[in-house]
């Protein structure tokens, strides 16, 4: 018995050593970025890698925040994200509800067509979308970007929400229906609260997409003042910051932190909200 205990302890220790090293590998790029961003000296060049810098300072953060249009990039990112998330939900919730609860001609056909459309890499639509936006007079405008982002993410929204709606038993709705509730009331008062994990995850993934999208912004928007954080960071690394890794590291962490926070807040919904529809 004693021998077994001893073996168990050794096994567990090996396992813990394994996991600690794996976690270290996963975190090292982030830790290193963080350490460079708060180091006062540019001592990252003399090959003495330490995770704790010899002198701590927030000068890099200050420089990023105030020497660049960082605040207006942040505002732009927030505006675009919020509007895209709202618009995506307004479009995809009723659509997902229709596909989940109604049986109509062309339902299956449309559902599969949507899936098929996803096979076309969005990035290759660039020049076509450019022409469409020009036609609509939406070049160099936020409305144009919101439209593109919504169009790109709505298919995902429909499929993800529909999958979750399907798992909500019809009986729950029947009761409300007998009480004379309209579809609109049903969706708002019954379906949405029950589908919360999926609605949250859908919104967050749309938000992260908008937060990380740079190609459309860089291509369609022509003044850096109107850039988003992603586009701003992209333009920074492509130019002056290439020589200034400490500044760049603090800028990239500032961009990443909001997403990190949101992600870990909703983390427990993440897998269930994403997979309820597809995993049975």
């Amino acid at each position, binding site marked *: 018995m004693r021998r077994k205990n001893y073996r*168990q302890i050794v096994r*567990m220790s090996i*396992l813990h050593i*394994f*996991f600690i090293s*794996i*976690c270290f590998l*996963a975190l*090292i*790029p*982030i830790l*290193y*970025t963080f350490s*460079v961003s708060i180091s006062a000296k540019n001592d990252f060049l003399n*090959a003495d*890698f330490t995770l704790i810098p010899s002198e701590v300072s927030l000068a890099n953060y200050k420089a990023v925040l105030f020497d660049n249009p960082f605040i207006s990039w942040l505002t732009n990112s927030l505006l675009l994200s919020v509007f895209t998330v709202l618009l995506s939900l307004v*479009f995809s919730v*009723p*659509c997902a509800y*229709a596909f989940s609860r*109604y049986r109509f001609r062309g*339902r299956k056909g*449309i559902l*599969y067509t949507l*899936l*098929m*459309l*996803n*096979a*076309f*890499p969005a990035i*290759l*639509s*660039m020049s*076509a979308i450019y022409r469409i936006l020009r036609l609509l007079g939406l070049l160099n405008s936020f409305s144009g970007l919101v*439209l593109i982002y*919504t*169009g*790109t993410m*709505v*298919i995902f929204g429909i499929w993800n929400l529909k999958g979750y709606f*399907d798992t909500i038993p019809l009986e729950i709705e029947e009761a409300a229906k007998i009480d004379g509730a309209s*579809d609109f009331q049903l969706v708002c008062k019954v379906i949405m609260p029950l589908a919360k994990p999926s609605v949250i995850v859908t919104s967050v993934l749309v938000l992260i997409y908008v937060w990380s999208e740079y190609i459309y912004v860089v291509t369609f928007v022509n003044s850096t003042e109107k850039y988003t954080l992603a586009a701003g*960071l992209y333009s920074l*690394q*492509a130019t002056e910051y*290439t020589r200034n890794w400490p500044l*760049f*590291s603090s800028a990239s962490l500032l*961009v990443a932190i909001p*997403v*990190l926070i949101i*992600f*870990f807040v909703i983390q427990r919904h*993440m*897998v269930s909200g994403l*997979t309820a529809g*597809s*995993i*049975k």
Partner: protein
Amino acid sequence: MKKKAIPYFYSMPALLVILLIVVMPILYTLYISMTNMNIYHWFDFEFVGLQNYGKALFTIDSGFWISLLRTVLWTVANIIAQLVIAFFIAVLLNVKGLKWKGLYKTLLMFPWAMPGYVSILVWKMGIYNTEYGLLNQWLKKMNWDTVNWLSSDLIAFCSCTILNLWLALPFMIMVIDGGLQSIDKSYYESATIEGAGFFKKLQTITIPLLRPVIAPMVIMTVFTTFKQFDIIYLLTQQNGSKTGADIHTILTYAYEKASVTNNYGYSSAVSIIIFIILLLFSLISIKDLKEEGR
């Protein structure tokens, strides 16, 4: 309103946006792919039939086939590595009696939680950079020669693969971990009673039961890996800061033909071919994504 019209009414706004932003560009690309639109024929382009397709498919040095081959290699290598490593880690996470499992899982999720393009740029600047990247700093410390991680084809391809693994593994680990937890523990108990060892259980219980559960997510990952653009583009092909490695995947290849050499007709033809390849793949795999009939 007529009852029959209701679902169409509900889905109309979403479908219209999709029509405008997704369907129209595809149709437009299809149309342009049959013209000679390029920098010399910006407005006066004319219909040339299937000439662009012929150029992509039958000209040996067009670069199309090699990029396609590279993309397939990239996808296969990444998916296999992801599945094997993620499975291994997830199984170990589920070892009975492991403490701090939640903490390890949270820490392992960080790469997934970072916005992808930030991570890619951070890796480019902080890990792979020739002067102050972490890897070369370590090499210098050990008095070894430094390496240009992104400039020769093979090394750059491996660097991109490592980064993709770093980015994609957390999701795969969570999916497989979720799948493992959905397996009824009593199967293992009865297998233990019958004297089955660890590998026997893996082979007869874990893998067969896990497969249907993780299949949709794996298929999804195949798509995102095949369509991965940011890693290769940002690490090696950025406009104005190319590193010299020629590791175009089919996607960066098509993008470059459009945005750098402005050969729109040709690029559109390549886009449509990519679309057809991915469509065929979805048709093959659609039975796994089938919705449950109710």
